């Protein structure tokens, strides 16, 4: 073990002097953290992602349901903010100036048209540079107008049954009644990561597969430079050399990921979860990544070849495992296939951890450990000739 630690200490000293490792463990993660904070930072703050304006040119009771009940309820989740425009013109100006993502315009006689059983439309004017926000606004409006269809039916039925109440008031009350069939809200924190955390975690596990390369591929560099022969001629066990390289990968990978966890938490407000659970996932994730790249390195003849192959493997597994987009949500065969990627298990573990129970990460940590064991075992069998074990 002493020899392994000496080799790892030497490697780490070399890596600290090697700017490429600083790029992968510090510059890129921090740079990505900054980019994410700029792109998704608003989401992390919990508000102001989609900023909307609403102009009520109708002033009727049904319109009031939309402006005073539907939109405030939607903004309670923190995903949108709504401001009231005094006129249609002001709402359009706010969109043009980029002050809001989209504007809802309730046209004159909106309530009257609903009462008359005619088509009533909420206009949505969106920023062309914000299609996602505009789409969300359109969904909100369509959801409300779809409900109005059933309102019209309800009001007509009430009047036919002899109700003497004001039809407009009846319509407003019907429109504001919650849907009888509501999706049961599973606390999102139990099964889903918020977007900021998801992409921060995806990028961190993606880069992990690059940072851990430095340890295992240095064995190939040592062979090329002739220093491997000198190491093997020293009075140490050949396995100590492999173990030393492994320790180097683990340290570099763990430190790099820890930096990214801290950076994304501070800069972006990513919520990784309980530190113990995160620690377990990071450690097992680093082991799994090291195991995978060790297999690739054991098949390569040079460190350049290994680096190329490892990049292909890292990108392929990253894409398959959901580092770039949530593959698991696609469902079907792809979601099943994604389970062969350590990235998928790492992200799943974090999602499980979001519920607050540290033990929830154990299945994913177990899967990651299995990746590591299979990887190390395969790499040992393939690479032992390298160090004449």
């Amino acid at each position, binding site marked *: 073990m002493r020899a392994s630690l000496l080799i790892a200490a030497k490697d780490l000293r*070399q890596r600290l002097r090697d700017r490429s490792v600083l790029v992968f463990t510090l510059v890129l993660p921090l740079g990505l953290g900054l980019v994410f904070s700029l792109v998704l930072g608003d989401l992390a703050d919990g508000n102001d992602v989609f900023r909307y304006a609403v102009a009520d040119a109708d002033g009727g009771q049904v319109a009031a349901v939309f402006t005073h009940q539907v939109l405030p309820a939607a903004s309670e989740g923190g995903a949108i903010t709504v401001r009231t425009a005094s006129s249609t013109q002001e709402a359009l100006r706010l969109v043009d100036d980029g002050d809001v993502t989209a504007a809802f315009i309730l046209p004159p006689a909106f309530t009257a048209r609903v009462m008359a059983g005619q088509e009533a439309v909420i206009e949505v004017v969106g920023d062309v540079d914000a299609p996602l926000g505009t789409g969300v606004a359109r969904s909100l409006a369509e959801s409300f107008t779809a409900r109005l269809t059933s309102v019209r039916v309800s009001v007509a039925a009430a009047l036919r049954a002899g109700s003497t109440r004001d039809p407009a008031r009846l319509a407003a009350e019907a429109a504001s009644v919650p849907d009888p069939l509501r999706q049961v809200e599973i606390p999102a924190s139990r099964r889903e990561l918020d977007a900021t955390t998801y992409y921060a975690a995806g990028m961190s596990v993606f880069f992990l597969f690059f940072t851990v390369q430095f340890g295992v591929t240095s064995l190939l560099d040592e062979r090329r*430079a*002739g220093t491997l*022969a000198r190491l*093997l001629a020293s*009075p*140490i066990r*050949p396995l100590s050399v492999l173990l030393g390289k492994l320790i180097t990968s683990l340290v570099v990978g763990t430190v790099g990921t820890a930096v990214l966890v801290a950076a994304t938490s501070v800069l972006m407000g990513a919520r990784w979860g309980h530190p113990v659970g995160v620690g377990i996932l990071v450690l097992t994730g680093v082991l799994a990544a090291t195991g995978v790249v060790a297999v690739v390195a054991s098949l390569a003849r040079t460190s350049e070849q290994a680096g190329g192959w490892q990049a292909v493997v890292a990108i392929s597994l990253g894409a398959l495992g959901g580092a770039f987009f949530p593959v698991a949500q696609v469902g079907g065969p792809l979601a099943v296939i994604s389970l062969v990627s350590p990235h998928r298990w790492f992200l799943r573990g974090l999602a499980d951890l979001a519920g607050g129970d540290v033990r929830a990460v154990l299945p994913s940590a177990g899967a990651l450990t299995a990746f590591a064991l299979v990887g190390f075992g395969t790499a040992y069998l393939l690479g032992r000739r390298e160090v*004449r074990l």
Partner: protein
Amino acid sequence: MTTDTPEVLSCKGLRKRFDDVTAVDDVSFTIAAGETYGLLGPNGAGKTTIISMVAGILRPDAGDVLVEGVPVSTRTTEPKGRIGYVPQELAVYPDLTGRENLTFFARLQGLSRVAAARRVAHVLGVVGLTDRADDRAEHYSGGMRRRLHIGMGLLHEPILLVLDEPTAGVDPQSRNAIMDNIRELAHSGLAILYTTHYMEEAERLCDRVGVIDAGRLVAEGTRRELVALLGERDRISLSVDGDLGHAEDVARLVPAVLGVAARGRGLELLVHDARQCLPAVLSALAEEDVRVRAVEVDEPNLETVFLHLTGRALRG
């Protein structure tokens, strides 16, 4: 030397094959303390394979390597601590300083932090790098790196130093410095195994030479023993003034002279050992007032030996 001093290295029946190629075929030799043994052969002859098996980084298919009677293998650790290995490639870490390179390998040899610092300081002095110890090796000249490379093999005070072509790619000045270093180490009692394809180095440094070709040790011994194996004689060519016939008669009377022939305005003498008998020849001629204007000695060298043994030039 081999009979009076303890045997440090013993190689017995070493064999190694790589796929269909027999790299080393039944090679046996020994080295005594204080002896420098050279493995002389062209590139690809099997020298580095033998060295790798001696250093315990390559497992022989057959045969044994013993250092002070203890078997060396890829799995043993203790006997490796008695061997200082200097591989052919310049095995230094360019991004570490000379001191860091040496300290790392000293610690791998099992030296404590304090002992390593002391040995590193000593070795830096031996290889003449004390002033540049804290510069990164990437800023060293080729010769300095080569000296650092050799120094790494001396850190743990081995009893056997194994050098695989240590002067490859080195300028003549550095080569001389390295060879002087090696000679001093041999005088200090170190057993040295030295491979080279430079005949001059083998002749200059080695007490005994093993001639290796196609993985086989085709002959071994001192230079003189090897030359004698071939029945070769030294030649002394003399340019003389005066009566050539008289000069020929005088030379023929010198006991060590085996034969004399007149060639143009000079004589050609065939002798056993030119260096030893030349003074007697010159003295005899001077006593008979034969004036010698020029002397040329032609000794068969290891190049000639190799050519005779293998039918090929050493550097073909």
